[in-house]
C-alpha cells in the first residue's frame, strides 16, 4: 500500500491530462488505487479480529479496575489466572504463526499486566505505577517473542515506553530503574536522553535483525517515542539551568548517528523526519533560552525559524523519499 501513488499525485495526474470520469476510473484501476474485494474482506477480517481481541483485553482490564467487592480476592485472582492459563493452552494447541495462537499470546500479555495490577491493588504493595509497566514489559517479553506478531510488539513497545515516561518524568524513588541509577536522583535531561537512546537502539536492533514482528509501522512507533524523549531531553538540557547541558550534546550525537544510518539505509524517511523534527524543537528551545523573553522580537525569530526549517525539512524529506522510491522501482 505504501508504494502506490498517493491520491494527491493522482489528482495532479487527472488534472494535467484532463481526464474525464471514465478516464479517471481507468487511471484509478491502472494505479490499483481501489482495494479489491479480497483486500476489503481482509481489511474487515483484520480490523474486526484485532478489534475483538482488544475488546476482550479491555474487558479484562475493566474487570480488574472494577474491584468487584462481591467477589472474594481468591475469585478475582482465579479469573485473571484462568485467562492466562487458557491463553497459554490455546497458544500451545495452535502455536504461532496461527492467528489463534498469536491472539492467545496477546491475551496472555494483557492478562500478565492485569494480574500485576490486581496484585498491587489487592496487597497495596506501594509500588509506583512505572514499576507495574516495567514489570509487565519484562514478564510479558516471552509472550512477545513467542507471538512474533506486530500487534504484540507494538503493545510491548508502548508498555515499556510508558514505564520510561513515568520514571524519567517523575523519578519515583523505587523499583528497578531506581536501583539502576544508584538510588540517587539523577539529572532529568540525562535520564530522558537514556530513554531516547533505548528507543533508538531497539529500532536499530529491529533494523539489523529484520524481525518479522517489527514492521515499519512498529518501528515508527519506536521512533516517535524517540522523538518525544530526545526533544524533551534537549529542551530540559537547554532551558533548565539546573540540568546538565551534556544531554544536548548526547542527543545531538545520537541524532547525527541516526541521520547517517537512515541516509545510508535509503529505506524509510520517517527516522530522518524524526531527526529534523527534533532539531527544529532544539533550535526553538535555543532561541527561547538565548533571548529569555526579554524582547518580543524573539517571537518573530521563532516564527521565521519554524517556517524556514520546516520548509527545508519538507523539501529535503520529499526529495529523498522520491529518489529512494524511484530507485526501488528501477531495481
Amino acid at each position, binding site marked *: *500500500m*505504501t508504494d502506490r501513488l498517493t491520491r*494527491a*499525485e493522482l*489528482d*495532479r*495526474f*487527472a*488534472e494535467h*491530462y484532463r*481526464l*474525464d470520469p471514465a*478516464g*479517471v476510473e481507468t*487511471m*484509478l484501476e*491502472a*494505479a490499483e*488505487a481501489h*482495494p479489491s474485494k479480497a483486500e476489503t*474482506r*481482509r*481489511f474487515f477480517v483484520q*480490523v*474486526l*479480529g484485532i*478489534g*475483538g*481481541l*482488544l*475488546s*476482550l483485553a*479491555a*474487558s479484562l*482490564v*475493566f*474487570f480488574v*479496575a*472494577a474491584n468487584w467487592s462481591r467477589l472474594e480476592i481468591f475469585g478475582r485472582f482465579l479469573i485473571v489466572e484462568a485467562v492466562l492459563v487458557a491463553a497459554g493452552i490455546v497458544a500451545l494447541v495452535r502455536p504461532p504463526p496461527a492467528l489463534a495462537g498469536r491472539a492467545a499470546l496477546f491475551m496472555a500479555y494483557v492478562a500478565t499486566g492485569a494480574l500485576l495490577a490486581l496484585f498491587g491493588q489487592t496487597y497495596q504493595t506501594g509500588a509506583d505505577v512505572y514499576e507495574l509497566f516495567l514489570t509487565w514489559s519484562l514478564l510479558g517479553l516471552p509472550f512477545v517473542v513467542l507471538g512474533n506478531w506486530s500487534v504484540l510488539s507494538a503493545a510491548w513497545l508502548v508498555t515499556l515506553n510508558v514505564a520510561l515516561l513515568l520514571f524519567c518524568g517523575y523519578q519515583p524513588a523505587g523499583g528497578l530503574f531506581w536501583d539502576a541509577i544508584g538510588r540517587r536522583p539523577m539529572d532529568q535531561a540525562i535520564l530522558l536522553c537514556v530513554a531516547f537512546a533505548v528507543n533508538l537502539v531497539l529500532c536499530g536492533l529491529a533494523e539489523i535483525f529484520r524481525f518479522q514482528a517489527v514492521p515499519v509501522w512498529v518501528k515508527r512507533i519506536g521512533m516517535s517515542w524517540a522523538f518525544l524523549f530526545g526533544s524533551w531531553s534537549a529542551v530540559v538540557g537547554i532551558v533548565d539551568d539546573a540540568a546538565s547541558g551534556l544531554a544536548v550534546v548526547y542527543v545531538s550525537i545520537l541524532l547525527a548517528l541516526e541521520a547517517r544510518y537512515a541516509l545510508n539505509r535509503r529505506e524509510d*524517511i*520517517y527516522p530522518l523526519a524524526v531527526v*529534523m*523534527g527534533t532539531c*527544529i524543537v532544539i533550535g526553538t528551545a535555543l532561541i527561547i533560552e538565548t533571548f529569555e523573553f526579554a524582547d*518580543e522580537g524573539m*517571537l*518573530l525569530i521563532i*516564527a521565521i525559524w*519554524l*517556517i524556514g526549517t*520546516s*520548509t527545508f*525539512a*519538507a*523539501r529535503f524529506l*520529499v526529495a529523498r*523519499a*522520491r529518489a529512494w*522510491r524511484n530507485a526501488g*522501482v528501477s531495481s
Partner: protein
Amino acid sequence: MSRLEALTEKLRAARLVAADAPPLEVDDSGRPWFVSLLLGAAGWLAGLMLIFFIGITFRMTDGLGLAILGLFLMGAAYGLYRVDVGGAFLGQLALAFSIAGQIAFAFGLLQDANSALVVSGTLLLLQIGVFVLMPNRTARAIAMLFAGIVWCYFVRFAVYPDSDWEGWFMPDQKNAQFGAASAVVTWAITWVPLVAAALWLLKRETWWMSRPLRAWFRPALTGLLVVLALGGQLTEPFATLMFGPDRWGMQFGWWSLFPLLSIGIALFAAWCAFRLRNLGLMGVGLFGALLHVSRFYYIYGTTLLEKSLIMLVLGVLLLVTAWWLRERGSQS
C-alpha cells in the same frame, strides 16, 4: 521508470493520454503524511508566534484594528499562495500568515461576544470562508479540520444553550433542549451529516477527480476523516481526564452502549482511509478508536463491571463476525 511514468505509459496505451502530451512534472504533492503534519504543525505554531509578536509590538487591542489586521494577513496569505508554485518557503510563510490572520480576525470580531453559540457559529463561517478561498490544499485541509471541530461546538451550544465556559470542554447538562435524549440528538446532528459527507465524497470520487472541484473535495475529505476519528476527543479534551465519582456509577441501560457509536465512527474513518489507500489517515482512525475505548473507561454510563461485560460481549461478537467473514472468503 518511476511509478508516475509507468502510469502514463499505461494510459497512453489505453489512448487516454495523447502520445505527444507533455510529461507531468514532479512536485511535492506526493509527500508522506508525517511531512504534511510537520509542515502543518510548524506553520500553525509560526502563525501563533507571528500574531503574538504583532499584538505585543503594536499593542493592538482594538477590535476593529485586529479584524482589519486579520483580513490583511489573510489577504497576504492568499497572495503568497498564488505566487507559490513549488510548495516552497512561500507556502509555509502563507500558512503562518493565514493562521495569524484568522486568530486576529476572530479576536477582533468576537472581542465582545458573550454567546458561545455566536462565537462557534462565527468561527465556523470563518473556517468555511478560509476553506473556500485559500488556494492551497494544506490550508484547506486544516480549515476543514477546524471547521469540523467548531461544528461540534456549534451543535453542542445549540442543543445546550446558555452553557458556561465548561461547555467548551464537555457538554453542560444545564438547559438541555431535548432532555435525556439531548446526548443522542447532539451526536446525531453532529456526526450523521459528517459521515454522510465523507461517504458521498468517497462514492463520487471519480466524478470530482475529473473536475477542478478536486482542489476542494480532496482536502475536505482529509479534514473530515481526521474530525471523524478525533473530533470527539478534541472537543471534549477533559472528558477523558476527569474521572471523579460523579462520572460513573450509573445504572446499566441502553444508554451505556451509546459511547460505542464513537468507536464505530472512528473505525468508519479508518475504512474510508483504507478505501483511499491512505495509511496515515488509517492510523489516525484506528488510533481514534483506541482513544474512544479509553474514554469509555473513564466516562459515560455505567459501572466498570458492566463496562467489562459490554466489552466482553462486543469482543466475542467482533471475533465471531471476523471468523464468519474469513470463512465466507475462503469458501468463495
